[in-house]
């Protein structure tokens, strides 16, 4: 009998390494894409930096008000006027009481004159609706230095 001089080839050789690699690549791609999607959707202004600051869990019963350097406002990422912000604060306080909160995302180069109307609006609505003088629920967003 003749002895074969080379190993016999198997029928089908499936290499799953590349498949796993590609699947991992896709998972990472979609994770990264959704992450950047969310970041862009927030459209935050360039926030000021601070050394202190609390890494608290964000209050779900809250609204986000962005204040840009040119004085434009957005409320929950949609362009808004001061009157709309006031109305949203009023409604929130009526609905949720002191559990309600406002996150103020002010651009670091914005003048205080653009921030002040929001503080005043919150103060007015809080005094009107809640009737307490000690104001709670106002948060200034900062980046950690």
């Amino acid at each position, binding site marked *: 009998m003749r002895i074969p001089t080379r190993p016999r080839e198997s029928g089908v050789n499936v290499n799953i390494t590349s498949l796993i690699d590609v699947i991992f690549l896709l998972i990472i791609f979609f994770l990264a894409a959704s*992450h950047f999607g969310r970041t862009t959707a927030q459209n935050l202004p360039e926030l*000021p930096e601070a050394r202190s*600051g609390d890494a608290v869990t964000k209050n779900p019963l809250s609204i986000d008000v962005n204040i840009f350097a040119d004085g434009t406002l957005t409320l929950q990422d949609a362009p808004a006027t001061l009157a709309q912000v006031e109305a949203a604060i009023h409604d929130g306080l009526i609905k949720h009481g002191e559990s309600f909160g406002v996150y103020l995302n002010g651009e670091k*180069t914005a003048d205080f004159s653009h921030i002040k109307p929001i503080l005043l609006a919150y*103060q007015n609505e809080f*005094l009107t609706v809640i009737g307490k003088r000690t104001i*709670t629920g106002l*948060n200034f967003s*900062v*980046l950690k230095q």
Partner: protein
Amino acid sequence: MKVPSYTRRRDSREMLSMTPMIDIVFLLLIFFVCASIGQRPLFYFSSESVAAGTGVDVPIEQPPPKLLEKIDLKIRRQGEQTVVEMDGRTIDSLEALRPVLLELSELASDVPVNIDAADEIPYADLIAVLDICRETKFESLNFVLPPPKGRRPAAAPPKRYAE
């Protein structure tokens, strides 16, 4: 000469497949890029610790006489620089404010600090002053704002919100 009846295959040990290596290199590259780009987390100055009362008519109870009743900080703009006025004294820079407040907080950190910012102050400078106050452990920080104007008539608040 005898013609080989099959195409000669290279031994698998000689064959270096680059595909998995490139895949893994890309994976690592993407991982490190994503990790380095990672979004910076947001932190907050909440009004419970910072702006408890926006300085309109926050009642200040009269405890036994103290050396220091309150601290009034007036933040103003001089040219391109932000300065702080405190008890008639002008502090030229925000860096110079820190040791002053640190010294005062060692005396009495429970006194309220009233922050009166001019309209033209950049928001970052206001936050810097708040930051310094928090770092120096002052417990009560208030904004001085004009009294509420044109408030809508105070509708009777629902009972559960009434004090």
